[in-house]
């Protein structure tokens, strides 16, 4: 009991201790959070009318970010797979950080879904027993279920490991390994469920394809590790945490293979849509070329594809990949590319044209963008704090001191 208390105390103390740069970073994020919060208050008062969404395009950047972040959350833990299957000790070092990223991404996901609700005051209706949880029927219910479960898992496993380390012991393999196995399965499931959430809609032919699930996993496996790799670079530069060059290479390879598969799946999708065009091609047509002079998404998707192709070229050629600068560039390209491909390039065109054939465009409003930025800032704050404290404990800087 005492140990737990002291753990939390030290954890928090460690999380908030830092240099000038740290405080600058945190202040910046906090300002963004407040801006986002103010924007959200406005949305809460006036309703979702302050967004750019309409009956025609009823989901926008919120859900786009949500699908992207589910990928990040899932991918973080999937890094664990090689580390256990291939007994890869190197990756093990950073798995804790990955779990931290998963937690942050999960929380962001939940926040994004919440701000998207028309009646956030009624969110308790989703609680089982108290409310009406339409469980195995509704895929949204499934999504809520797997996301909370995943959040729980990614909190408890690192907590156990850190806590044991904190007390100066070695975490027992038998204790956390089953948990890790479950969370690996769970990680796959959160992303699959999110893909099914979209692909189950017969009303939206653009999503209604069996390839969506695999595509989601592939893109998550590429963007997630890429994002993680970037944060690792950041950590290596600004903390004492030793991240070996080999880890970067390992993660880069995972991301490369995933991105190659992702591009292949995208190509398969495009081929099927366009070889013999049906009425169901309309969304793809709109996305890639525009319909009836409406072309809002065309620059987005082509830039996403360009970014992904450039990234995959850099990553596939070994000398280029070994160049640390280029690797960072590739990762940034990959993250942004996948973010567009999964948000602007997947969620929004699913709604255009509407099931009644109306081409109605969507562009996010300032309020939506601010709220989204606020949520990203919340996520980054959480990740920063978790990572800082975890690093301190891992490095043995803080240890439980038994009071005399």
């Amino acid at each position, binding site marked *: 009991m005492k140990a737990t208390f002291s753990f939390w105390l030290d954890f928090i103390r460690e999380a908030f201790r830092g240099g000038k740069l740290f405080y600058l970073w945190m202040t910046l994020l906090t300002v963004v959070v407040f801006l986002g919060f103010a924007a959200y208050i406005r949305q809460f008062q006036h309703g979702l009318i302050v967004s750019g969404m*309409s*009956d025609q395009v009823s989901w926008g950047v919120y859900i786009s970010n949500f699908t992207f972040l589910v990928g990040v959350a899932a991918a973080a833990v999937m890094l664990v797979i090689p580390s256990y299957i291939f007994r890869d000790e190197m990756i093990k070092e950073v798995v804790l950080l990955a779990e931290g990223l998963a937690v942050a991404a999960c929380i962001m996901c939940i926040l994004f879904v919440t701000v998207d609700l*028309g*009646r956030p005051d009624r969110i308790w209706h989703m609680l089982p027993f108290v*409310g009406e949880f339409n469980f195995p029927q509704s895929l949204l219910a499934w999504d809520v279920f797997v996301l909370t479960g995943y959040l729980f898992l990614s909190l408890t496993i690192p907590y156990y490991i850190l806590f044991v380390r904190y007390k100066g012991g070695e975490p027992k393999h038998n204790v956390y390994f089953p948990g890790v196995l479950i969370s690996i399965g769970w990680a796959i499931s959160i992303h699959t469920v999110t893909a099914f959430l979209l692909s189950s809609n017969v009303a939206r032919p653009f999503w209604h394809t069996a390839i969506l699930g695999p595509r989601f996993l592939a893109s998550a496996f590429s963007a997630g590790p890429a994002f993680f790799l970037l944060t690792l670079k950041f950590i290596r530069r600004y903390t004492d945490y030793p991240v070996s060059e080999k880890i970067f290479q390992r993660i880069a390879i995972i991301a490369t293979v995933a991105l190659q598969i992702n591009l292949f799946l995208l190509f398969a999708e495009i081929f099927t849509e366009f070889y013999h065009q049906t009425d169901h091609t309309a969304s793809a047509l709109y996305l890639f070329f525009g319909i009836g002079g409406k072309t809002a998404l065309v620059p987005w998707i082509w830039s996403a594809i360009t970014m992904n192709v450039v990234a995959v070229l850099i990553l596939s050629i070994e000398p280029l990949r070994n160049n640390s600068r280029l690797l960072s560039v590739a990762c940034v390209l990959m993250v942004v590319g996948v973010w567009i491909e999964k948000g602007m390039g997947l969620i929004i065109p699913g709604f255009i044209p*509407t099931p009644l*054939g109306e081409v109605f465009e969507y562009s996010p409003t300032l309020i939506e963008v601010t709220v989204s930025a606020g949520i990203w800032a919340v996520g980054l704050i959480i990740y920063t704090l978790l990572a800082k404290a975890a690093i301190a404990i891992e490095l043995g800087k803080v240890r439980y001191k038994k009071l005399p």
Partner: protein
Amino acid sequence: MTENLKNNSNQVSRRSLLKKIGVLGTTGAAAATGVTLAAQVVEKSGQEFSDSLDSFFQKHYRRMSPEEVQVTIARLQRKAKRKYNKDISIDTAPPLPVTLFGYALNISKCKGYRKCVDACVEENNQGRDTQIQFIRVLEMERGSMNLEESNHYYDPETVPQKGKFYLPVQCMQCENPPCVRACPVKATWKEDDGVVVIDYDWCIGCRYCMTACPYWARHFNWNEPHVPPEELNPVTHYLGNRPRSKGVMEKCMFCVQRTRKGKQPACMEACPTGARIFGNLLDPESEIRYILENKTVFRLKEDLGTEPKFWYFTD
């Protein structure tokens, strides 16, 4: 009953409190009136406060006991009174026995006047500023059934236009409704008379049902809907046209407030060409059964397996 008692005791205690205040501050009759007025204000806003607290905890419609339904209806009526200063009735009539509603629409008769669209808005109290319309009339190219070539916003001097036909679309009350399956909180369901309804007080506004509907039949209150009080239709149904609030979903529910009493839906009554025929699919004598059994009918997107209970036919 208990409600009343509680209210009474509240009033009594408040009154005695007032008396004390009055005694304490004996400065004159003016002060007393002031206090009474203030007390009235407090009482009123107190009611409002407890109402909003109760609506926060309002149960799912299908879980309410009959007494709870009564209490809820009374509260909703008070709410409507506050907002529109008008007394409305809120019906809770259940589905009629041995009744399954269906609709048939004669596209050779539809001329694209959009009379049904506006009649529906007036009947069903859609917010006038939110511009929600349950019915979309599509101007279609003759010789094609491609919805992507349709024009939703046609506005020529006169209709029908040459080379066009008109296809009104609204909620099809699918027998196998994807929207119902989508809803994470069971805020929408299919009633025994086949009508898919929404509990506007249970919906959390996630809009997943909207994504799932293949007929673009669902509409969302992006802001607080307003109806000019003089235009508010005071005859409402809990699952039908009662006033809605912001952030919830709504859609055509075959005018349950009318049809469960044997009346025609507003769109059918308003249609000047008699293109719309509504009736009971379980009654072999009904007009709709005659049409389904004797005319050439089709349904929109039948390949999706939604089993719409809305048929189109031609002469």
